[in-house]
């Protein structure tokens, strides 16, 4: 039983990480597309902290994805 759940959780983790990568690459693509457009208008419009969002997203997604799988082993004993 727990093996089936672990496989399901593994698939969910994989989908989650792939979704995160897709969003990060789309964000990067759009950021560079409009970043050059902003720079053609003004240097002052260039946005900062974009990488902060990306790294926060990567860390939190990995933490939640693998954290949930680890949690599965301890959840019957936490109460």
């Amino acid at each position, binding site marked *: 039983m727990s093996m089936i759940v672990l496989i399901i959780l593994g698939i969910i983790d994989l989908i989650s990480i792939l979704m995160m990568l897709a969003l990060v690459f*789309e*964000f990067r693509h*759009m950021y560079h597309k*409009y970043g050059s457009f*902003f720079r053609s208008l003004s240097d002052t419009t260039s946005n900062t902290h*974009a990488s902060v969002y990306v790294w926060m997203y990567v860390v*939190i997604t990995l933490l939640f994805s693998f954290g949930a799988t680890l949690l*599965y082993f301890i*959840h019957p004993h936490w109460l």
Partner: protein
Amino acid sequence: MNTEATSNGEMFISSMQEHWIRYVGPAFGCLILTTLSIFLYYLAGVSAFEQEWASDALFVTATIMLLVTTHGIFHLLMSRYLSQIIVTDKRIIKLDQRLFLQDEMHESPLDKVRVVSAEKHGVMQSLLRYGTVVLDQQKITYVPHPHAVARDIAHVLEMK
């Protein structure tokens, strides 16, 4: 007002992100989903020994909900980051971005604009300082400090 000439002679005036109020509804939805998923984790823990199947189903559902919420929140944050309103002496550009869902750039040339006005309706818009900038018939919504933006545009129109 920050003005700066570009290589093609266009003068940059200001740029801003849409007001954060636009994202309060989806953010609230994400908060409810997170709370619900934590509650499901709790139920999964409670029923782990008595009803193993139910506990596992609750655990998987809670994980899916938590991850969907995480992706939703960051999708929202990154989309907002890219959505901009840019004012130059020749045009107003509004970038509407929703990653994978929407990629729109609306451009309003200022040489055809006759009237510019700013609107704030209701207590929320007055308290949170956002509203609508109206250029003839075209409306730009969720503009932070719309009167200041309208004043900047009117100033540009006067210079022409």
